[in-house]
């Protein structure tokens, strides 16, 4: 059953929701989550694409996305913790406006 194209549409919808989230949310945690959503949506797109062609390559690509996503999250969250320590907030705007050093 041809779910591939609808799946691609769904993927792009998720992807864009993630993008919008990154634009509009100020809290670092939320931004990271949106990032996850985007990567995940990209993965979904790949799986759908592989479903189109009925071969495993797309799914394999998803397997490559996974570690990337987790690595990014690991570093991102570590940064979040540090930033919270230094700035007492996760608000990216106020962080941006606050002085360096």
């Amino acid at each position, binding site marked *: 059953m041809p779910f591939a194209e609808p799946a691609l549409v769904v993927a792009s919808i998720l992807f864009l929701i993630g993008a919008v989230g990154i634009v509009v949310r100020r809290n670092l945690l939320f931004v990271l989550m949106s990032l996850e959503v985007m990567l995940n949506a990209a993965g979904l797109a790949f799986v759908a694409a592989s479903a189109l062609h009925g071969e495993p390559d797309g799914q394999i690509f998803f397997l490559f996305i996974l570690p990337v996503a987790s690595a*990014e999250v690991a570093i991102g969250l570590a940064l979040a913790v540090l930033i919270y320590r230094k700035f007492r907030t996760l608000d990216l705007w106020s962080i941006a406006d606050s002085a360096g050093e």
Partner: protein
Amino acid sequence: MITLDSAIFWTSAVVAIISTLSVLLSRNPFHAVLYLILSLFGVAMIFYTLGAPFLAALEVIVYAGAIMVLFLFVVQMLSPASVPDSAADLKRPSVGQFIFPAGLAAVLLTTTVLALYRSGSLASADDTNVVSARELGVALFKNHYLGVELASLILLIGMVGGMHLGRAAGSPDDAEEDEKVAVR
């Protein structure tokens, strides 16, 4: 005609989209994480309908199971509960903030949909053939060993990063940290 698969697909798609939206809109990180987990479940179901059961499992285990839990830990650690929901960064973004990005997103979406359906040149397999874990493994390790290596390296780098940045958690004293991490 509505088959079981299509029902599953559409419901899970709707679930995924709505829950992702509510991640975007929620004000409490806890809820956000939970919504995200929900949307991941939805995506996993879609994987299933797309004939990638193994990936569906991975999605649940790795994403929902590992990454999101990591999120939860951090959320708890930073305990934004102490922070009132009314904190500037947790407020739900106003509609005005949405207009511009949402507009752009709409543009992108329309172009994508146009591309997908106008050209219709996509070769769609009439029937989804399920890729078993075995085939996947074979393909992965036969053709893409380099990718696997790189992926593992990426995880290693991530680990290094986590460790390095995590060090800070230990030491309250910045001064001595400073010259430890000194680099120009």
